[in-house]
């Protein structure tokens, strides 16, 4: 006698917005604790991981499995602790989006879900019982759930805008690009340049951090090329070059444009959440009387071993009356720079997931006068990390279309640089 191969239910269902807030939830099984959705916020919505495995739509956190599907700016999430039929769960989530669309004039977005939450709860009552999918056919459901979906006022506007856009496309007016450009070799370069800033307290908690990013493109392309750029949507506060079709970005999250010739700044962005700080530092400075100071600085890199930082400079402040310093280093070179009132520790290359230490003993010139206590300015770091992005932004694809369909060489480079990267001591 054999038992069934997999479970036919989902334990809980959530609608979650792009910030990770729960819009709608129904918990069907006792084994689903109420805080499980927060793991989703931490590991999926706010995650900066960009490798394929951590983007997969079926994942396990703790002893619960999470299946999710993204539609517009809403995540539909099913959680289960059994060996559920994942294909059924996914297909169900997809049908659910269709169902809400059928009730709401084809619309589905965070605004629509919020605006129709009573209707959606009522629908959920029929489409899932004890976590088992029941009836999801809109035609059947409309025979006994009569509520009308509420439609956003933006819809009407959007449709008008779309038609206006269409006329623009028909007339083909692209003011920022000359016709008849010709290149022997068609090439496009895209640089992702990020500046990461941080302020850390002496206790090691991050007080402030942000990443300012720029995408700079150099396009040497013949004719009237259409470019599509796919980014993972981890960005807040994005601004675009005027050539970018904003409507398409809002609808499909695709950066679509006809590029100007040569170099231009395609977009800028800023983010403050989910940043992986490339370096962590700990500084210990002890004053021994008036004439001596012991300094220990430990710097640890958190980026993967495959990449490395270059031109790393750590500036450790010391009092103005410093006479000399002697060092003990695990790597790099260090000296005392009287102009900057700091110990300057330079490392040409800093590998990923590595740790280096500076230990210095500093001698001070003893003065007769009573001096005011040392103000302890923050420790600062400068660095560059090629092929790394601290915000987790990722160029997923870069596609060029042109009617003569020529071959294009594409180059994407990334670099992270230090902005104001400081640590209080």
């Amino acid at each position: 006698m054999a038992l069934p191969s997999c479970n036919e239910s989902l334990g809980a269902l959530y609608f979650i917005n792009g910030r990770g807030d729960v819009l709608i939830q129904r918990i069907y099984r006792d084994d689903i604790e109420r805080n499980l959705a927060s793991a989703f916020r931490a590991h999926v919505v706010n995650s900066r991981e960009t490798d394929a495995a951590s983007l997969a739509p079926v994942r396990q956190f703790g002893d619960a499995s999470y299946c999710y599907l993204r539609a517009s700016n809403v995540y539909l999430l099913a959680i289960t602790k059994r060996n559920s039929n994942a294909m059924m769960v996914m297909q169900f989530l997809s049908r659910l989006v269709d169902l809400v669309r059928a009730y709401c004039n084809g619309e589905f977005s965070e605004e629509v879900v919020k605006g129709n939450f009573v209707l959606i709860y009522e629908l959920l009552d029929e489409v899932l019982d004890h976590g088992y999918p029941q009836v999801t056919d809109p035609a059947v459901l409309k025979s006994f759930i009569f509520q009308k979906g509420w439609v956003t006022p933006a819809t009407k506007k959007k449709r008008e805008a779309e038609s206006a856009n269409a006329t623009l496309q028909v007339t083909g007016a692209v003011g920022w690009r000359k016709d008849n450009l010709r290149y022997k070799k068609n090439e496009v370069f895209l640089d992702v340049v990020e500046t990461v800033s941080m302020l850390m307290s002496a206790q090691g908690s991050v007080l402030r951090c942000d990443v300012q990013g720029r995408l700079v493109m150099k396009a040497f392309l013949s004719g009237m090329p259409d470019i599509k750029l796919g980014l993972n949507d981890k960005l807040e506060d994005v601004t675009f070059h005027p050539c970018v079709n904003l409507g398409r970005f809002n609808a499909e999250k695709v950066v679509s444009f006809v590029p100007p010739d040569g170099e231009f700044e395609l977009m800028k962005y800023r983010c403050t959440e989910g940043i992986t700080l490339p370096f962590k530092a700990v500084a210990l400075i002890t004053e021994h009387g008036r004439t001596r100071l012991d300094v220990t600085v430990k710097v640890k890199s958190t980026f993967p071993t495959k990449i490395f930082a270059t031109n790393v400079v750590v500036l450790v402040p010391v009092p103005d009356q410093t006479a000399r310093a002697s060092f003990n280093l695990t790597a790099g070179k260090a000296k005392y720079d009287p102009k900057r009132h700091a110990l300057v520790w330079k490392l040409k290359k800093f590998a990923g997931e590595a740790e280096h230490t500076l230990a210095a003993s500093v001698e001070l010139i003893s003065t007769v006068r009573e001096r005011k206590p040392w103000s302890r300015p923050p420790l600062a770091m400068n660095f560059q990390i090629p092929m790394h992005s601290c915000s987790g932004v990722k160029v997923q694809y870069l596609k060029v279309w042109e009617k003569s369909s020529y071959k294009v060489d594409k180059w994407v480079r990334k670099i992270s640089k230090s902005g104001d990267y400081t640590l209080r001591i």
Partner: protein
Amino acid sequence: MSDGRYFSTTKKGEIHELKVELGAVDKSKKKDAVKKVIAAMTVGKDVSSLFPDVINQMQTDDMELKKLVYLYLINYAKTQPDLAIMAVNTFVKDSQDPNPLIRALAVRTMGCIRVDKITEYLCDPLHRCLKDEDPYVRKTAAVCVAKLYDINAELVEDRGFLDMLKDLLGDANPMVVANAVAALSEIQELAGKPVLDLSQGTVAKLLRALNECTEWGQVFILDSVVAYTPGDARDAEGVVERVLPRLQHANAAVVLSAIKVILKNMRYITDEGMKSTLQRKLAPPLVTLLGAEPELQYVALRNISLIIQANPGVLSNDVKVFFCKYNDPSYVKMEKLDIMTRLVDEKNIDQVLLEFKEYATEVDVDFVRRAVRAIGHCAVTIQAAAERCINVLLELIQTKVNYVVQEAIVVIKDIFRRYPNRYESIIGTLCDCLESLDEPEAKASMVWIIGEYAERIDNADELLEQFLESFPEETAGVQLALVTATVKLFLKKPTEKPQQLIQLVLTYATQETDNPDLRDRAYIYWRLLSTDPEAAKDVVLAERPTISGGQEGVDPALLQELLGELGSLASVYHKPAASFVSKLRLAVHRADDLAAAAARASGSGDSEALTSAVVAEPPTARSAGATPTAAAAAAAPAPVPDLLGDLLDLDVPAPTTAAAPAFAAPAAASAMPAELPVVFGEDKGKGVVVCAALARGPDGSYAYELAVTNAAVGAPLDGLMIQFNKNSLGLAPANQAVAMQPVLPGTTESARVPMVHAPQMAAPEQGTLLQVALKTNQTGVLYINDNIPQALVAPPQQQPSTDPMAFF
């Protein structure tokens, strides 16, 4: 009007305000207030204090309002069990309402209120609803039985609901049948014993209902029918014939579950012609699955990978459909790439290679790297195409894109291992891009190539010297490669420069480093070189076995298990369900399961098979031809094994002939010490208590002593078998079958299982953990987490010496 406004009340005193509004006379105002309460509940505010006020709204003709109140009730009944009783009367009344929607709503909601007191009142309405004239009510009642079983299993059995549920399998309405199947499957899972009796007659009934079911009902039925074992080939053909039309269904889950049933029954079909026809019919629906949303595609691709591992023929002509689209999400691209490398053969290699080359010029770095690896894989597996693959790799190296070059060098090293002395002419090209190498793996590969072919590279010493300049800063892997390469260079060209280099590198590696591996290896080389350079030559420059290019796949035993669970989470993770389903109430079903579980546990190194606690990280996948692995050496025993390969294996007991079983016969039951610790208690719910411990006899041999008590299994326990997961002592039972008297209910029997050393069972990383699987014919498999007693942790004296110096 949008409901969005209900979310925007965040001011203080909100609860009080809502209370007032709920008491209003105006109906629409009341309803608005309830909506606000639900909105607050959704965003996580505690509105349980409004319980009586909300429940007061229950008696209403407004369906929408009623449903909202019920929603509230389901959420908070547990926190207010006494007040929840207030609602019972309304439920009972509603369950007799003339409107079937209201009857169903009442019984559905009551089942969701998990308060003991309410379940007593639930029985009568449920009884009525199971026999209701309206199928909508019956299908809701069927699910309600499963809900009730979860709260109070005894009640369900006492009141005969289980039998009523079984009767519904023959209901005229297919949706009722489908829900009854789902409910019975769930009860079966909870009970851990067969409940859904899949006789030939039942299966025929279920398959008849299949045609008219909702799409979800079809999934329920197909997933339960897969457990049915056909009586003979004709029976199997009959099932397949019924299921075959489902392949055209628009629902991906229906299609995949249908494929699962067909694959299972195909095994019982004897007509080869029919089999191959069926195999051909499976391809188009699998391809259609790739037209869905990316999330569904992902699940489909993970399953397709399993299907083609078991039946490589199914999609052998369809490699093209797995070509990546530029805007596929990366998780889809990676899976497609994996499947393409499984489907590539001599016929399609040219097409696939062109495709891989295209991917290698994309912009997603991870994807590009995988594409380069895939090209290397093709070269290693398809001999006829090796040259074409190498040409593509050389073209890619010409692009000078840093990460492409590095990845290409890593795979070229594998190609050199696979086809020695054939493609060395390209070494010159490789040496040109030396400066751009900055990743450890690429560096180590390049260093290996230089050392291996030192005699053909004129300036090998200069090249190595370049690398040696940064020796102290390199990772351990690169340092080890450098030490070995320098030794090779010295043995091949014992001139002045290499001599200097070897002095330098050995001095550093023995004196300045903290890494014991590096130091040990350097010492071995040093002694070897100073004692007998000729012997050193024999060891270091010995011919290595060529590597084969087999692709990592799922372990065969696990693969069979997963094929029976296609579509499930297990099939997506490629892991056994027991490894991630926390409630180990999963009853084990196949007779060969113990063996399968044991093979899995020892074969894949996946210790999660036996416990949800992750104990050891699974060994990293060995790419085809990293430094010589034990596996490669075992597959093709070389006359002189590579010194390094041997050294890597030194930390596990060297292979020996398994010690002879030390115990002639199991000791008599009465001789057993009574004070064995309990390792599997009654709390596990199997009705069996197992006390056991590992012991060591006076002669140094091991035995596993155990006592099995039949606490609550109605029949005598017999057919006891035992298996061990890998453990730090490398122990395995001398015999899987345990000689023990059948354990009568209420009694205890003991046994002593002699253990032997088995090198393949050694897993030092397991520490003191000892994972044991026991099986009896009555209980299925019991998984036990035991510990190796402290006194026995030290290795026994008779173990072969593992001192590396003993070799010299």
